[in-house]
């Protein structure tokens, strides 16, 4: 620990905000554009939806007071709770709801929130506290879909919201905390909302940007933080041994993958994709970075959608040889080549992806041992977003995190908005549509398990693993419950004793 830091930490330990760490403080505070878990966590603190979930995951009103669903299920009328205010004191109105839907759906906004409001065909303010919604298809339980964050109409000039909107630095929400200021060190200070009818117990909260994740555990240990959102596997034993720290295992539904750019001519050949897969020893890649489970498809093994009959890939050098020879490659002294061009690929990853360097260096050695060259490219946030969006990569090492519904439509449907690999399969589209429309749980399970099998067979990516996740709290933080997906969903109940 840097000695100069100690006095500051001690001062903070004596009195001050509840502090949690992110390795990257969000650059954008606007739920319209949320793409990362750190941004989603901050959204939960600052914003609310019309409805939320209680500790039993029942849908309960937040900004709404109630909903009346039309008999034909194609529309609903939502009444807003009386007296709700934005953090700046202005009243929450029906116009705010209709604006949020309009902004998220506006083609110039290009909002990541768009998918969550796509089921709304029309949103109209009946009066100041009543919103009339018309849906694109019948929906039995629309309240469950009305959990997306609501934004203030008065914070924007119109529904076409630019990426450089002033709102990003001066967000106004209705959530349990109000943003006080962005600190010079990248941290974000928040205070308890004075207009929240069910105020949080914690008076102040601070997001501390600590880019060195190994250092985050030290900060928790020495009272520089109250909470770590995710403990690095190598820190688990250290923290577990401390009586002033309590570990909370939690469900993340997050998994790692090595994705192929399916527009790259080499990877349009399924044999080459499979050859890469069987050249890999995934267990050996996983072992140094933590405990977790291997995957054979796009769900975590504990998911109801996981098809347990799909086998995991295992290293198989003879199959690799056969596949590459069938694909027209020959083994030369330097490795595999076709038409004199060596099989040399480049993998792109975000430089902040935990343990990615460890994984990729080992992967590089594994592939090289089988005659496949691998170049590594680590890029920052801006480059990552730009390159992925433009399809400017050969291989991607990354991960996806899902909520408990584990809806993979955006990633694997040919019309999905988060499908950078360019995956398209008509049968998978049909299965995902069937799962979305299913009203019988077993029909939904069967459709998604079939999608798992079909995607695994098509192999747009090598499915790697889901890591065990633990949050760590100082033991004087009580009444902690971590939502299966939303880390701060129940933050109002947390207390420091």
């Amino acid at each position, binding site marked *: 620990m840097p000695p100069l830091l100690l006095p500051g930490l*001690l001062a903070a330990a004596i009195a001050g905000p509840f502090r949690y760490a992110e390795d990257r403080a969000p650059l954008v505070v606007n739920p319209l554009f949320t793409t990362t878990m750190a941004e989603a966590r901050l959204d939960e603190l600052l914003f609310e939806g019309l409805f939320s979930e209680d500790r039993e995951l029942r849908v309960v009103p937040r900004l709404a007071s109630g909903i009346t669903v039309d008999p034909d299920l194609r529309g609903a009328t939502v009444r807003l709770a009386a007296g709700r205010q934005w953090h700046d004191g202005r009243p929450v109105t029906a116009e705010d709801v209709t604006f949020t839907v309009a902004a998220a759906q506006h083609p110039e906004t290009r909002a990541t929130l768009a998918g969550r409001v796509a089921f709304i065909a029309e949103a109209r303010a009946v009066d100041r506290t009543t919103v009339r919604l018309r849906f694109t298809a019948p929906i039995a339980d629309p309240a469950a*879909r009305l959990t997306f964050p609501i934004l203030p109409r008065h914070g924007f000039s119109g529904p076409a919201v630019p990426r450089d909107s002033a709102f990003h630095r001066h967000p106004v929400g209705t959530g349990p905390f109000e943003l006080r200021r962005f600190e010079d060190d990248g941290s974000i200070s928040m205070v308890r909302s004075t207009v929240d009818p069910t105020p949080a117990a914690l008076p102040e909260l601070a997001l501390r940007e600590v880019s060195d994740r190994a250092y985050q555990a030290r900060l928790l240990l020495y009272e520089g933080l109250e909470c770590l959102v995710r403990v690095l596997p190598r820190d688990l034993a250290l923290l577990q041994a401390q*009586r002033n720290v309590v570990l*909370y295992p939690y469900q993340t539904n997050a998994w790692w993958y090595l994705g192929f750019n399916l527009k790259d001519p080499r990877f349009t050949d399924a044999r080459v994709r499979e050859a890469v897969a069987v050249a890999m020893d995934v267990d050996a890649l996983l072992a140094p970075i933590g405990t977790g489970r291997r995957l054979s498809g796009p769900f975590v093994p504990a998911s109801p959608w996981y098809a347990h009959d799909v086998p995991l890939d295992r290293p198989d050098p003879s199959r690799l040889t056969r596949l590459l020879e069938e694909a027209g490659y020959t083994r030369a002294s330097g490795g595999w080549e076709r038409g004199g061009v060596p099989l040399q690929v480049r993998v792109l990853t*975000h430089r*902040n992806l935990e343990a990615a360097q460890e994984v990729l260096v080992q992967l590089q050695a594994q592939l090289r041992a089988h005659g496949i060259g691998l170049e590594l490219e680590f890029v920052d946030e801006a480059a990552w977003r730009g390159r992925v969006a433009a399809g400017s990569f050969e291989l991607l090492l990354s991960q996806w995190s899902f909520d408990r519904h584990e809806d993979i*439509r955006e990633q694997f449907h040919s019309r999905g908005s988060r499908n950078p690999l360019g995956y398209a399969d008509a049968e998978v589209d049909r299965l995902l549509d069937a799962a979305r429309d299913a009203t019988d749980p*077993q029909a939904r399970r069967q459709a998604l398990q079939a999608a798992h099998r079909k995607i695994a067979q098509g192999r747009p990516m090598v499915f790697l693993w889901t890591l065990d996740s633990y949050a760590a709290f100082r033991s004087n933080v009580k009444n902690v419950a971590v939502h299966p997906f939303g880390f701060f969903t129940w933050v109002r109940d947390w207390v420091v004793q």
Partner: protein
Amino acid sequence: MLALLLLACAGPPALPGRPLPPGWVDAMEADPAAFDAAVGAHRDGWAALHRGDLWAATAAEGPPAARAAAELARVARALRPGLARVASTQKSDEARFFEALGAAGWGERPAAVALPAGHPLAAAAGALGSGGLEALGQLAGPIGACVAAHLAVRSGGALGDLAGACPDPLWVGAGGGHRDPLVLSTLAARPVPALPPEAALPFSAAWSAADVDAPLAGPSLRALGWTGDPDVDFPALDAALAARPAEAGPGAALVAELRLLSVWRAQVVAAAWEAAPRGQGARVLAWGVDAQDGRGPGPARPPLLLAAEAAEALAVGQPRAALDALFPLAEAVPVLAPVREAVADAAATESIGRDGLSFAP
């Protein structure tokens, strides 16, 4: 300020703790031969019990098999309320029959289920209503065969026989598929032979032979001032464990290798969870996290703790979260697969009509 600085450098202060009286771990630490004597001729079974592989331990013979059977019964009782909650959410005719069958498995008088004449389950419902499980076990067809297999297991038959006799799902009707509802009650009803104290002690919550009958109320934990409040008791227990002299005997390496202190502590957490008042179980489980075993069963993450995690999640209506524990549990104890699948159906029900969210890291 200097004091605070030292505090920050040294980490949290050690709590003054009361010492633990001598226990089975001390005996093994003092003399590794005590371990050999304890495991005797059933080393493989004890090894399975130690790593939380109750299925293998059950298939072994002697004391480990008896211990595994007893722990499986505790697992079943832990999961019972949550599974009942899941089952009670289904309202079809078939669901009412299977709910009644589940109740009969626990020895309760099942509610009469009158199914319309011609319903494929009408005969089964009639047999259950008139003669209970025994009558149903006489009936031809998959349900009768499955019930007969359960009755055989309850009379001491091999647990593995259920796998072949009870397909999953056991029944597929208009109301969807239905799972075998007798699994938990059969695990709880299997006869468990009585064991001498020395066979009941290793890898258990009892610290000494005097604690075997009631580990939480026995003299060892009483010596620590056990109160029933986990936030008081587990710091005191941890202080006592931390105060034990290191490298105290020739068996120290064995104790460390088998993580015997962690094993005992995990069993105490499990016992404390069973004893916790309704609604307080999650507070106990917070003290049971041992990341060394990952999410699967292991020496410090026994199946009973996994069952407790699942039970807590089901108690607050979170079937998807329960699957995180039930999945490794059913891997280790395959006969629990119908329980996992029933909860997976409940999680799937919860997702009907819901949008999902996804994020990059």
